């Protein structure tokens, strides 16, 4: 069970909803992934295109917890406003704090992220900040009451996978709240490694929506996250420099 604030989930995959080729593929991907948490962004509506369908309308909202993000915010103040807007939908009280500090790398602004997270915790939101893999910043985010910490594996959408497993492991080891590896996942093995390191969950979007076959990749990610988690729980063997035979060395019928 993944417990975030007062919520409980059996799936450890959090799925983004951006950039799918079409709603049908997206709906199938969501179903196959067996995710229970879907992220969304908050944007101005084109009021002259009311007939345009919205992905939310295609979902059974009883089955999913919505995790809106504050993407687009450059300051804590903007992030808090977007969080309020999202909550006013009456559909959710979870918020992914995302305050981007650099448009080229899409890396988060640590100071503004911390400020926004602290304020939103005080306001009663369930707060999941997207953060860099800075170990001390993760600790500070936890100290202000965040309900989960979401360090990036590598830059958003880059598909580079886990570039600093040591920092991620330090964050996981010290954290009393769930750690969800968010952003940069490219392949199922990336997701499995995140889980083997001890992550409580993985949040990904482009790795599925941008795959040649998103539905198949959604299934691959689900299985990889399950496999990685089982592997972590089972406990891996020690690494050794030299071979250790698996077959008995006694009783050989040779010589």
């Amino acid at each position: 069970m993944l417990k975030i604030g007062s919520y409980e989930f059996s799936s450890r995959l959090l799925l983004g909803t951006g950039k799918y080729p079409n709603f049908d593929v997206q709906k199938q991907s969501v179903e196959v992934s067996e995710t229970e948490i879907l992220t969304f962004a908050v944007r101005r509506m084109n009021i002259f295109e009311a007939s345009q369908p919205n992905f939310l309308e295609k979902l059974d909202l009883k089955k999913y917890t919505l995790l809106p993000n504050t993407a687009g915010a450059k300051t804590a103040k903007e992030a808090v406003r977007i969080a309020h807007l999202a909550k006013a939908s009456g559909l959710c009280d979870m918020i992914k704090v995302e305050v981007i500090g650099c448009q080229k790398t899409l890396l988060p602004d640590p100071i503004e992220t911390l400020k926004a997270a602290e304020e939103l915790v005080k306001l009663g939101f369930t707060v999941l900040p997207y953060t860099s893999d800075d170990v001390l910043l993760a600790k500070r985010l936890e100290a202000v009451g965040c309900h989960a910490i979401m360090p990036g594996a590598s830059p958003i959408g880059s598909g580079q996978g886990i570039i600093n497993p040591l920092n991620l492991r330090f964050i996981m080891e010290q954290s009393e709240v769930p750690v969800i590896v968010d952003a940069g996942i490219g392949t199922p093995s990336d997701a499995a490694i995140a889980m083997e390191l001890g992550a409580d969950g993985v949040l990904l979007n482009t790795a599925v929506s941008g795959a040649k076959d998103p539905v198949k990749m959604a299934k691959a990610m689900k299985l990889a996250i399950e496999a990685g988690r089982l592997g972590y729980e089972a406990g891996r063997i020690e690494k050794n420099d030299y071979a250790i035979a698996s077959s008995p060395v006694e009783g050989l019928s040779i010589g």
Partner: protein
Amino acid sequence: MVRFSIGPFDTAPFNLMEVDELELIINGEKIRIPAEESTVTGLLQHFNLHQKVVIVELNDEILAKESLSETLLSNGDKVEIVHFVGGG
């Protein structure tokens, strides 16, 4: 006979004449709507958005869903209508 309080002349015409349109700033654009749609719910119905999941901010204040049908709009109001879109 209705008497209006005396205010600055440049705002007076809105009070004195019967206007059949409201000019609002919706999502940053000047937009006119029929004056009879003067509640926020009326505005959403006008654009056929009342069945959609939308969040409305009026003059920088987020409106609770329950208050949409009672909230009146006036000329020059700044309205933001936002919704959820795909994102990671």
